[in-house]
């Protein structure tokens, strides 16, 4: 008979007797009673290793009063989860791409940065993407010519490639069809393709798409592109000499921001751009006279495109010169005062609602812990419901002409989503780059094949005034409010 003490975890069991005539398994059974660890899970350290179940006590040389150490738990044994975990490294390339949070860049095929940046900007419009994916490959409607069809298909393919790929995509097919459709992009200079104006590419591409994406039923409303980008303007044309006045409406895809000496801010430029003078024959005077044209926005698009008119034809040097003037633009644009009276009325209710929501977010939350929070909360809850009552009529008035989905309303407030910048001194030279806001809120700069993450505060620094990238075409996305 030996008496030993056994240390297990932090506990010490004193005075355990070992009957050396019986195998160690019996000893383990003793320990099982004390610790609850089944014998097969017990590990008892003795000189020269672990205590075996069938070992001979005399060979082990355990002395009376010795301290033994036991290891082992009755814990559950860890099992691998049933469903194997999938690691990013194992995924196919395209799934890795979605993990990245942004899509791939485009390879520069030789002065094609104007095209690359345009494509990247347009690609950021999900509605355009879905419209394209609905476009049938074969079913070309008769009023779309072959080249437009091919360009539309190429656009669709390119957008798809971009989403699937991790590495930069080469837009060769797209470029070929683009040049086929618009031969002006094939101009050569010193055997190289010339740099082109991104604005021209943007306008032409969008026009082509709007033509080909028109629903076969061919009604004005089903024009997908127009619904997304189109701005209806109502203009008052006024002749000061004769006092004649007429009004006309037109639809444009972008607003122009004219840059003159007074313009420091986008808003001023837009206002400037909506006023113009034109010469036309006055029926009253029987000769050409100067008419003043003042336009106001009649309907709002989902995506508001603004072009900074930075390039003008300089006659003395015979080239497109660039205005380097700094024109600030905001991340959040409110175009309420550029809207027509009718539109303003429609917008008022949703705007109020938006303000309330924001106010709730900013102002009421901190107060919620105060005593009178109950009262305040009910106040806040009542206010919008009243508003809702009033505005329901307004919403009905909007009717079919509203481009918004049911239940959501335009507010006239827009958030910046893409910036297409130009760096250099003339439109046909320099470098175009696209800066695109992702759904995650991150800004990505697409410099041809190199996408890189940018900070939001750097985006507003693209406003010009130096030789840095400066905004040329910017696009805002409408902010909706649900009623």
């Amino acid at each position, binding site marked *: 008979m030996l008496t030993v003490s056994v*240390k297990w*975890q*932090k506990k010490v069991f004193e005075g355990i007797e070992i009957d050396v005539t019986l195998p160690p398994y019996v000893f383990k059974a003793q320990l099982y009673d004390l610790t609850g660890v089944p014998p097969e*899970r017990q*590990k008892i*350290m*003795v*000189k*020269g*290793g*672990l205590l075996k179940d069938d070992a001979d006590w005399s060979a082990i040389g355990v002395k009376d009063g010795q*301290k*033994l*150490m036991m*290891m*082992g*738990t009755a*814990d*559950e*044994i*860890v*099992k*691998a*989860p049933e469903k194997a*975990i*999938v*690691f*990013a*490294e*194992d*995924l196919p390339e395209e*799934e890795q791409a979605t*993990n990245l*949070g942004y899509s791939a860049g485009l390879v520069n095929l030789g002065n094609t940065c104007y095209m690359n940046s345009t494509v990247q900007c347009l690609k950021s419009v999900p509605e355009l993407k879905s419209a394209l994916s609905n476009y049938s490959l074969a079913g070309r409607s008769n009023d779309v010519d072959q080249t437009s069809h091919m360009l539309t298909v190429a656009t669709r393919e390119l957008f798809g490639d971009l989403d699937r790929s991790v590495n930069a995509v080469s837009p060769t097919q797209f470029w070929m069809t683009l040049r086929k459709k618009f031969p002006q992009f094939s101009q050569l200079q010193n055997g190289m393709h010339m740099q082109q104006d991104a604005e021209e590419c943007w306008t032409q591409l969008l026009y082509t798409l709007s033509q080909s994406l028109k629903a076969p039923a061919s009604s004005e409303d089903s024009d997908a592109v127009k619904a997304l980008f189109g701005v209806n303007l109502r203009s008052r044309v006024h002749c000061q000499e004769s006092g004649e006045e007429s009004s006309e409406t037109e639809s444009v895809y972008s607003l122009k921001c004219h840059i003159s000496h007074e313009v420091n801010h986008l808003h001023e430029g837009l206002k400037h751009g909506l006023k113009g003078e034109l010469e036309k024959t006055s029926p009253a005077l029987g000769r050409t006279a100067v008419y003043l044209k003042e336009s106001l926005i009649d309907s709002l698009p989902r995506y508001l495109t603004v072009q900074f008119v930075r390039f003008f034809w300089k006659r003395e040097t015979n080239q497109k010169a660039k205005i380097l003037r700094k024109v600030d633009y905001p991340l959040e644009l409110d175009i309420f005062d550029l809207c027509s009276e009718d539109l303003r009325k429609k917008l008022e209710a949703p705007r109020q609602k938006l303000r309330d929501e924001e106010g709730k977010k900013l102002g009421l939350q901190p107060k919620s812990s105060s005593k009178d929070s109950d009262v305040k909360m009910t106040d806040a809850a009542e206010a919008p419901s009243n508003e809702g009552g009033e505005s329901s009529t307004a919403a009905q008035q909007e009717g079919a002409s509203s481009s918004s989905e049911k239940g959501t309303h335009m507010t006239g407030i827009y958030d910046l989503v893409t910036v297409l910048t130009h760096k250099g001194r003339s439109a046909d030279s320099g470098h175009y780059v696209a800066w695109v806001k992702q759904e*995650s*809120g*991150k*800004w990505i700069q697409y410099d041809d094949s190199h996408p890189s*993450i940018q*900070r*939001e505060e750097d985006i507003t620094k693209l406003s010009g005034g130096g030789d840095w990238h400066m905004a040329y075409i910017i696009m805002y996305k409408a902010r909706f409010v649900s009623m």
Partner: protein
Amino acid sequence: MAPVPDPNNVGGGGGAKRDEATMKVPSKDPKKKDDKKEDDLSEEDLELKQNLELYVERVQDPNPELQKAALESMRQEIRASTSSMTSVPKPLKFLRPHYGTLKEFHQNMAESDLKKLLADILSVLALTMSAEGKRESLGYRLTGSGGDIGSWGHEYVRNLAGEIAEEYTMRQSEEASVEDLMDLVKQIVAFHMKHNAETEAVDLLMDVEDLDLLLAHVDRTNFRRTCNYLTSSAKFLAGPDDMLVLDIAYMIYIKFEEYPNALQIALFLDNMQYVKQIFTSCTDLLRKKQFCYMISRHGITVEIDPEMVADKDDRDMLQDIVNNTKLSEGYLTLARDIEVMEAKTPEDIYKAHLLDGRASSGPSVDSARQNLAATFVNAFVNAGFGQDKLMTVPSDAASGIAGNWLFKNKEHGKTSAAASLGMILLWDVDAGLTQLDKYFHSSDNPVLAGALLGVGINNCGIKSDCDPALALLGEYIDNEDSSVRIGAIMGLGIAYAGSQNDQIRSSLSPILNDAKAPLDVIAFAALSLGMIYVGSCNEEVAQSIIFALMDRSEAQLGDALTRFLPLGLGLLYLGKQESVEATAEVSKTFNEKIRKYCDMTLLSCAYAGTGNVLKVQDLLAQCGEHLEKGDIHQGPAVLGLAMVAMSEELGLDMAIRSLERVLQYGEQNIRRAVPLALGLLCISNPKVNVMDTLSRLSHDTDSEVAMSAIISLGLIGAGTNNARIAGMLRNLSSYYYKDASLLFCVRIAQGFVHMGKGLLTLSPFHSERLLLSPTALAGIVTLLHACLDMKSIILGKYHYVLYFLVLAMQPRMMLTVDENLKPISVPVRVGQAVDVVGQAGRPKTITGFQTHSTPVLLAAGERAELATDKYIPLSPILEGFIILKENPDYRDEE
């Protein structure tokens, strides 16, 4: 007034004399000037001058009585004036012109007491007159009367000492007797030691190679400064002088029963005989406990035998301290006091929210690489705390989160994940084994391998009679799965580093020469043997590794892991200097692919921490060569540079500067190693200049340079929580967010910086930078060698080599305990350490201090001192565990 005799004319010595006179007194040349000066003399001076001239004349008088009287008076005058030595004493000045005369006269004098007396005076005069290298002062001294040496003033003695040193070297080369000199030396040493000039006494004795003399002359008042000077000068001496010097210091400490210091030196000399002697000569049990704490910090295995402590219970208690069983408790006491017990997640360390806009980009799918990084970060940050948020979460919650995290690692990643549990429960063997137990029953080989490795990590530095690590791991050494084998082998290497355990050797050695064993198993076996026998010069282990190296095929020699074989061999000789030579000879016969690598590794390991300038030059010469591609031996040469030079501050700074050069002119393979060398030099010591260099290199175009720079940034900031490095790494993490490999390195470095939530250090140096823990250095060096080929080892499937760092991980704390070893809190001042070696008086040893209550953290280069008289610390070096004894003389001020 008598015309002033020109010394040059009076002197009979001829041309040589003339030279020397002009040499000694530059303003002598124009006579006019002298006349002018003469006029300026005050009445007193004039009288003195005339008297002296009279004496000189009288000395030459034939009447011996008169001579004697004159000599006596002359001596009186000189002695009266040489007590202070701010300016040339007047009598000397006035006697100067007569030096030649007296000298000549002395020459012709018959042997007599008078001649001796004159010799004495000439000896003093020679202090200002003698030509360089003539040692006239000494010459006359030896022929003089040999009276009290100090009576002539301090400056005289000092001058004499200098001349003795010269004379001694000369006589040594001529093999002449030095006995007469030694008599003088004794007098001088006695004088110096009495007059607070211990440093000069030591210098003189070192020059005449007779330090033993010192023992007779040290006393309670001056032994401390003497020893201080001895130990710090030892760093700059070439072997074997340094050992000699330390031996003397040891003996002095023993003589004055200053055992803690004696123990320090004994540990430095790696002399177990001395350690034992300290235990046997000390009778106080409490002090012995303090010794045990010191030994345990050094990380060596010492068995307390009955001779050292008679009583069995006491012996067990001391052995427990040496075995580090209380380390975990002390560390947790510190952690609770500083309030950092709360577990941290890798996200707390990455602080991604401080980076703009990228925080939200958390990928929806787990990346195995990033999860592995998180595993390591989690392990290092929560090391030793016993709790974390990934691995130790109760497994019942939602079918086992712990299990979940483990399986969020891929294949070999699971090994590191399971092993991380050992790191989290570091030093707490009971809890560690309990937690790891469940993985032992896993059927998944990588998990089992991780559990084995985890046991090794868990037991790192902790020894136990039951040898749980050996008992558990032993049976897996020959497992058929090589990953399990590696886990067991590496675990043993970590758990038993420095223990020289024969049982493990007998089971690991056969693997080395097993033709069937895969290369990686052999490599890790060699490495583990190197660690277990670190600095032991064990012949048998060396033989097995050498044979294993010779058996490797050409292809295997090209494998990245092969580098662990020479490294294992090198570790055997860590810090053992010449002992490596025989093995270095053998290594010359190796295949040329590995020969030079082996050479460099052996050289650098053997001289690691010695500061040997010649070896530094050897290694620099290696780095200077521009080689054909494919040679890899320059990497270890650069690392070796740092290993050799890291021991003391001056050499360290020089090495940093040389590395800058190497960086500019070296080839790419050298540039990759330079950041690692910098990391080693400043490990856990974030020097700003090194930080800047590494930060620059971390953006290098060569990604391997960048990787090693990033890892090194982590190493220099290891355990410091340094905000600047943390910021740099955060920015790097966004800079390299797309490059998985570099991002992995950044994450690892972030884990290093916040290691142990800032309570740990990786520095192998301790006890005020005097002692170098061999196991700690072995761990770091192994990691650095692995980093030389980052892509195939750490970024490959052997990432668990990162865990070798555990050998160097130590709490950077100062914890005071009372006589019952229970923590007590006392006020201490913590400040920047000041080097007070060789300074007069009792200078302050710290500057810019702040007062804290213990336990406190000590940063690199900081020192603590007790801010109360209530207690007396049992060790003068306030680091780690310090036992406090109540001061019997203390009275409360009230």
